[in-house]
């Protein structure tokens, strides 16, 4: 599949188009086409490196939403030896915006839960653009409790614009579903490793993201609100989405500096979609590394540390000596 280039990647796109063109004429020409192609490819790499060396938060937001970005099921099939998807919340339905199931990660069995977006229009609609409804969060909770009962570590992958803002979702208790997950995950008796792979959209993301270790892919984002609605509320103009992305500090690098995440997973040159296999290798190694550390803890230690970790979130001042 041809790579889809974003607006700020246009110089790379032009170069790649030229390379493609040369490949077609290549066969019936005697000059050193291959040398020329190699030269252009090197140039394209250089160009990509220089463009990607200084991406703005808005450009990173676009990468996090890239239509070719690997999704949860892509990672699961690349990383896990087995995966058996489990469906339904046992109360209302099966929300396809969240997938989950039993998996083998090397020699350990884990429960995987993640948001799932669709690749083509039909699939996107079926997956509701990765925006879960209460039944999705309740399915996730059911699987988490199942994991706890059989002492299986939990791996969650986050990639959602946010919880679905619809009438039906509200009727079925969207806020309660999210709140309940936060409540239960905070005391779940198994290790939880969360990786933000794409968009970390607010409460809809956090609802499967209360964890012991929080990792982010280099070009993923995580924030309380997306840049566009933030701009329209605070700046009263959606044109300010770039400024909003900047102000929200939603990139992995910035959040790491702020001490809000544990690790940034480096992406292949040009982003995860340019080399999903390489990205999967990195992700797998990181998840296993963190699970190994967490598995050394007793359930009590695990709960205590998670509780202390969550309680430490926040920045405020305090006057002393009253």
């Amino acid at each position, binding site marked *: 599949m041809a790579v889809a280039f974003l607006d700020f990647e246009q110089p790379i796109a032009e170069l790649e188009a030229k390379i493609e063109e040369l490949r077609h004429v290549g066969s019936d020409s005697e000059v050193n086409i291959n040398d020329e192609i190699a030269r252009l490819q090197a140039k394209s790499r250089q160009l990509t490196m220089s463009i990607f060396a200084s991406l703005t938060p808005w450009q990173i937001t676009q990468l996090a939403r890239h239509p070719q970005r690997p999704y949860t099921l892509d990672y699961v099939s690349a990383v896990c030896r087995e995966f058996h998807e489990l469906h339904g919340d046992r109360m209302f339905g099966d929300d396809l915006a969240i997938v989950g199931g039993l998996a083998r990660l090397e020699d350990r069995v884990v429960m995987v839960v993640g948001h799932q977006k669709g690749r083509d229009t039909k699939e996107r609609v079926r997956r509701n653009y990765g925006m879960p409804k209460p039944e999705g969060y309740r399915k996730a909770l059911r699987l988490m409790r199942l994991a706890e009962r059989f002492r299986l570590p939990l791996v969650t992958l986050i990639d959602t614009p946010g919880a679905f803002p619809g009438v039906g979702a509200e009727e079925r208790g969207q806020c309660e579903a999210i709140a309940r997950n936060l409540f239960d995950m905070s005391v779940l008796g198994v290790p939880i490793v969360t990786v933000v792979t794409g968009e970390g959209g607010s409460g809809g993301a956090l609802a499967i993201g209360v964890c012991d270790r929080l990792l982010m892919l280099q070009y993923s984002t995580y924030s309380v609100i997306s840049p566009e609605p933030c701009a329209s509320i605070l700046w009263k103009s959606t044109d300010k989405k770039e400024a909003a992305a900047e102000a929200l500090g*939603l990139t992995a690098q910035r959040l790491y500096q702020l001490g809000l995440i544990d690790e940034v997973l480096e992406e292949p040159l040009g982003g995860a979609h340019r080399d999903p296999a390489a990205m999967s290798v990195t992700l797998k190694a990181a998840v296993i590394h963190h699970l190994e550390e967490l598995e050394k803890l007793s359930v009590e230690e695990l709960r205590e540390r998670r509780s202390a970790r969550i309680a430490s979130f926040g920045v*405020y001042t305090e006057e002393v000596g009253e």
Partner: protein
Amino acid sequence: MSWFEKIMPSRIKTERRKRSVPEGLWIKCPACDAVLYRAELERNLYVCPKCHNHMRDIGARERLAYFLDPGEHAEIGAQVAPEDALKFRDSRRYRDRLAQAQKATGEKDALVVLAGTLHGLPVVACAFEFQFLAGSMGSVVGERFKRAVDHCIEQRCPLICFSSSGGARMQEALFSLQQMAKTSAALARLAAARVPYISVLTDPTLGGVSASLAMLGDLNLAEPRALIGFTGPRVIEQTMRETLPEGFQRSEFQLEHGALDMIVDRRDMRERIAVLLRLLLKLPPLAA
């Protein structure tokens, strides 16, 4: 100064100066357009005597003063104050927005926590100040709420929270999102300690607050006609282009859909919660 303000008792004047509600001696009920005498409205806990509309104008401290037994109350987390960790700046600086909200409300942030008694029973009660940046939840709200819970676990006393909030505070970005986890995790510890938590949802309770501490009560109560939901009605209408059903996301709607235990009139709230807590704690009924 009008002749009316001159004869007004000074207590009401000072209370009024601290708050950013529209100045004036007469208030128009937004629901029934009745023109109401402010002092009478205050006595009626900002419930319209004509149509029983529960107004948002009641401040956090006014609410707690009514709710708790009279006397000394110990404030929890008062010394915790906001900090602009991200140097957030939109059309205005977050620091300036904070300073303005502090001046208008007399509060350092959007949650007030007091330890006191309710019909003699030691309790901790907290209330969101909606006039403070729409009662939005940032690091200070989260930390104060967590301290309220810690106090309740230590003293084994019940927690009551009156929420009125637009949701998480955007200017604190991921820090404020994490307050949803922080408050929910605190409540999980409270539940494990078997200490009761009563959540009272008031107009409006939305977003990150409804999707965390407000929906996690052992009992979820609400005031009549309060707007309660995750996504606000305007956003749903705009993004989904759906026409919203009559009474959508109001308390009565939430009760019908199973999100609430009961709807309680503001003027009966104190008695009702005292009674419920005594049942949960297996204490003898209140003396009549």
